[in-house]
């Protein structure tokens, strides 16, 4: 039987460990959690018509490299668009202000992520800036709906009409890399 002080220490350490584990589970594995140790960063926002199932914590990539994370998703009451806040690592501070942000899908049925394609401006994004050029998430139902509509309109033309609708069709399951830009039903939008 260990001495009293060792016993108390051992029990205290065990209980502390247990609670630390519980704390870890509740904060680090759920979306309502905290994140510790944020490296230097800056935040930019972008508005989308439809973000699909993009989530807080989804990655932000450029040329396939992860450069940031989605930290907040809001709703704009006036323009009825989703406002996504992205936290970019300070390491990647030379992103042109006219770059565009599109929402892509990881893998076949994976989650969504934001892909940035560089523009040509000489000024770079800094904290609080807004990305003007965006492309919404690819929504499977809309594509199918559009395909069916096209098909119903002109069955004979379905062959020629397809290229347009086929472009996303080729990537119907969704692009796997930011480079494969998939012009979804909505075209590029300029938001003033």
């Amino acid at each position, binding site marked *: 039987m260990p001495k*009293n002080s060792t*016993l*108390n220490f*051992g*029990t205290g*350490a*065990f*209980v502390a*460990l*247990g*609670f630390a*584990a*519980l704390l*870890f*589970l*509740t904060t*680090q*594995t*759920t*979306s*309502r*959690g905290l994140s510790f140790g944020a490296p230097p960063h800056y935040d930019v926002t972008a508005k989308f018509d439809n973000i699909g199932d993009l*989530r*807080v*914590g*989804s*990655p932000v990539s450029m040329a396939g490299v*992860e450069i940031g*994370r989605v930290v907040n998703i809001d709703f704009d009451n006036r323009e009825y668009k989703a406002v996504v806040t992205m936290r970019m690592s300070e390491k990647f501070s030379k992103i042109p202000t006219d770059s565009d942000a599109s929402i892509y899908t*990881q*893998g*076949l*049925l*994976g*989650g969504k992520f934001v892909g940035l394609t560089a523009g040509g401006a000489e000024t770079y994004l800094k904290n609080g800036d807004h990305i003007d050029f965006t492309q919404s998430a690819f929504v499977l139902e809309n594509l199918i709906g559009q395909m069916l509509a096209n098909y119903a309109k002109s069955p004979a033309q379905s062959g020629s009409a397809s290229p347009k609708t086929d472009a996303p069709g080729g990537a119907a399951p969704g692009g796997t890399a930011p480079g494969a830009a998939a012009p979804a039903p909505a075209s590029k939008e300029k938001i003033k």
Partner: protein
Amino acid sequence: MFKELSRSLINALVSLGAVVRFLLRMLGVTPGALLRFDLIVQQVFNSGALSLVIIMLAGLFVGMVLGLQGFTLLERFGSEESLGVAAAVGLVKELGPVITALLFAGRAGTALASELGLMRATDQLSAMEMMAVDPIKRVVVPRFLGGVIAMPLLAAIFSVIGLYGAQLVGVQIMGVDSGSFWSQMRAGVDLRDIKEGVVKSLIFGVACSLIAVYEGYHATPTAAGVGRATTRTVVTSAVVVLFLDYLLTSAFL
């Protein structure tokens, strides 16, 4: 044959009734037992801290297997990035509470049963009764409470270590994107899931500790009797835990 079956059923009901009455008796003296905090601390140490090694080892290996199997399965659907969610939910809601309970029954449960059984066999419990000290209050309840307190903590530790193991295999070995691993997890795991896991492990803790102290206290006061009590503890705990798991899972859905 039917008579045998009905007799076993009656015996089972009688045992169940005895166990419940024992639990009520324990709860009756618990307020007094809580005054002896030092006894409870000692028992939390015995049941919890001393079980840490096996719980952590088991958690690590189970997590690693989960990572491996999960990855292989999800890869078929191109959803490897969802490994984080799968591992976290599987561990926190099911594997953590259940496997911890089974291991607890094997390590701490048997220790409790054999300790009490030995005290019964060497007349220590009767001696305490003769000294006008209620052995239930002084010896049994602290052990029961120690087990109940230790179990959810052990389950949480199991889940965390398991997550680490799944992450070790999934991210570092199989190449799942670390960011997706954690972000999908954060998106897919709710505080409610964790609450469910904690409630489960608490109930398992009550069940396993109750069975262990009951068997030990009522063991036949011989060497063979103590051995039988120990075996029965493990077997009964396992069956009860798995049965309760089904009940609780369906209750939470």
